[in-house]
């Protein structure tokens, strides 16, 4: 915590008493605690919950797991494998497609590259609006436009990723050491050369690690996009659930679990080498 906020009050007769925070800071903190607690109890009292359902939950969960076991291994080669590959394609294509928009927006958003506040703000607006809409909602929109299928999933993943990759890449660009940039400019290098030979080499590790990180997130997200019809393993999961084929649901969930773990291992290892 901030040491500058320490204050010494001399109220206790000559013996200075050390206090960590000023009175105003303490009041503000207690106000926050109070508001959170008030909101919590107000929500608890008004929320529509049927407590009997909660007591019943362990039984229902046990019932679900007994229905799930044994898993439907036979469905893996016929349906789940192909759908899982589709999911990976959605995540990868979406990440690559998002770069097309994310890189220009990141450049426009970086204050040390584009010195126009207007352009900075416009880029920031697009980045923020891309980030504040959840990828499932993007998927709903694109399913309405392009119909159910992989295309809607790819576009949903791409538009959601633009904000994430663009923001983090532009932060990396803003942290670049300007000495190199000035040195190159002094030689009369063109803007393209300055970008490629001064900014890019310094921001490159951050760029690759951001893209890999987003790809990891996208694999997790594209697994559920199918629930709204945007292709991949989620469609299989949704169909199996609607038909109460619990063994198949269990197989699909296990497949997602294993793939997510493998991707995470891969990404952690690659990032270690990059940085």
């Amino acid at each position, binding site marked *: 915590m901030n040491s500058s906020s320490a204050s010494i009050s001399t109220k206790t007769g000559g013996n200075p008493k050390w206090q960590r925070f000023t009175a105003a800071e303490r009041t503000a903190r207690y106000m926050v605690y109070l508001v959170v607690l008030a909101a919590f109890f107000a929500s608890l009292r008004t929320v529509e919950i049927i407590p009997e359902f909660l007591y019943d939950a362990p039984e229902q969960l046990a019932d679900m797991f007994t229905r799930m076991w044994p898993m439907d291994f036979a469905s893996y080669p016929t349906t789940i494998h192909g759908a899982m590959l589709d999911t990976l394609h959605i995540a990868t294509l979406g990440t690559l497609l998002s770069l097309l928009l994310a890189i220009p927006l990141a450049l426009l958003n970086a204050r040390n590259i584009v010195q126009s506040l207007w352009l900075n703000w416009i880029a920031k607006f697009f980045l923020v609006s891309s980030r504040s809409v959840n990828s499932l909602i993007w998927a709903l929109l694109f399913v309405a*436009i*392009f119909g159910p299928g992989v295309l809607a999933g790819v576009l949903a993943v791409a538009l959601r990723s633009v904000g994430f990759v663009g923001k983090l890449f532009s932060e990396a660009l803003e942290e670049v050491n300007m000495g190199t940039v000035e040195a190159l400019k002094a030689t009369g290098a063109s803007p393209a050369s300055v970008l490629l030979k001064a900014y890019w080499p310094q921001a490159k590790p951050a760029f690759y690690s951001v893209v890999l990180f987003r790809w990891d997130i996208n694999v997790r997200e594209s697994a*559920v996009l199918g629930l709204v019809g945007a292709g991949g393993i989620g469609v299989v999961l949704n169909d199996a659930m609607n038909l109460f084929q619990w063994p198949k649901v269990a197989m699909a969930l296990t497949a997602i679990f294993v793939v997510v773990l493998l991707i995470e291992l891969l990404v952690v290892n690659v990032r270690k080498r990059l940085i």
Partner: protein
Amino acid sequence: MAAIKTHANPFKPSLGSRLLWLGVLVYLIYAVVTLDIGWDRFILGLEQGGRLVDRLFPPNFNRWEILLSDLIESLQIAIIASVFGIVISLFVGLMAARNLMPNIISIPVRVFIALCRTFHPVIIAILFVKAVGFGALAGILTLIVASVGFIAKLFAEAIEEISFKQVEAIRATGASFASTILFGVLPQVFSRFIGFSIYQLDSNLRNSTMVGIVGAGGLGGTLFAAFQRFDYDFVTAILLTIIALILVGEALSNLVRRIFQ
């Protein structure tokens, strides 16, 4: 005049990154060919998109009672889940820290945290909807799991980075285990814990508008239903509400962050 001595190019093209980009290109062609993504479909979609935008505007706030009650339910889900999630994460995070706990406790707790993190909230929501039925309760349980997965992991990592001198000093006075935690560990990590909690509260607010898609309460259910009924002007109204909710949440969390800095 002698010919100018040519220097080797200082910016050597790197073979590795060229191969990487070549690989990306080959993959792109392969994926577009094998998947069902046609250019004509895209063009067709653009026309359809134009019609959709026509029907999205103007937003229709006629059914604001439904909108308001769903909004309140989303808020309730986010607040209750965050408070429970934060309290649980405090203990789970302490138990997962390898410098405070023996392996026999920390390893199972770390596995538990990893399990909470692996699945997307929507998938957890599906399981809870089966367990406790449709409604806000499933959403609350889902977001509690998501909060524990995030806060407890980062909190445990923060505890592992603390300076152990203060802990040893307090232990040397003969303090009990609880006092060691309260006066040696927590003061060092509390501000970071608050930071993670605020971030998670914000993210719970976003997710509480989404878990409804699988029936776990909040705005998402109404949004999904409006989409399925092609009720697009109501969709716009719901989307605008969600965006406003997120913006207000972000402003509030920035305020709290400034208070606790």
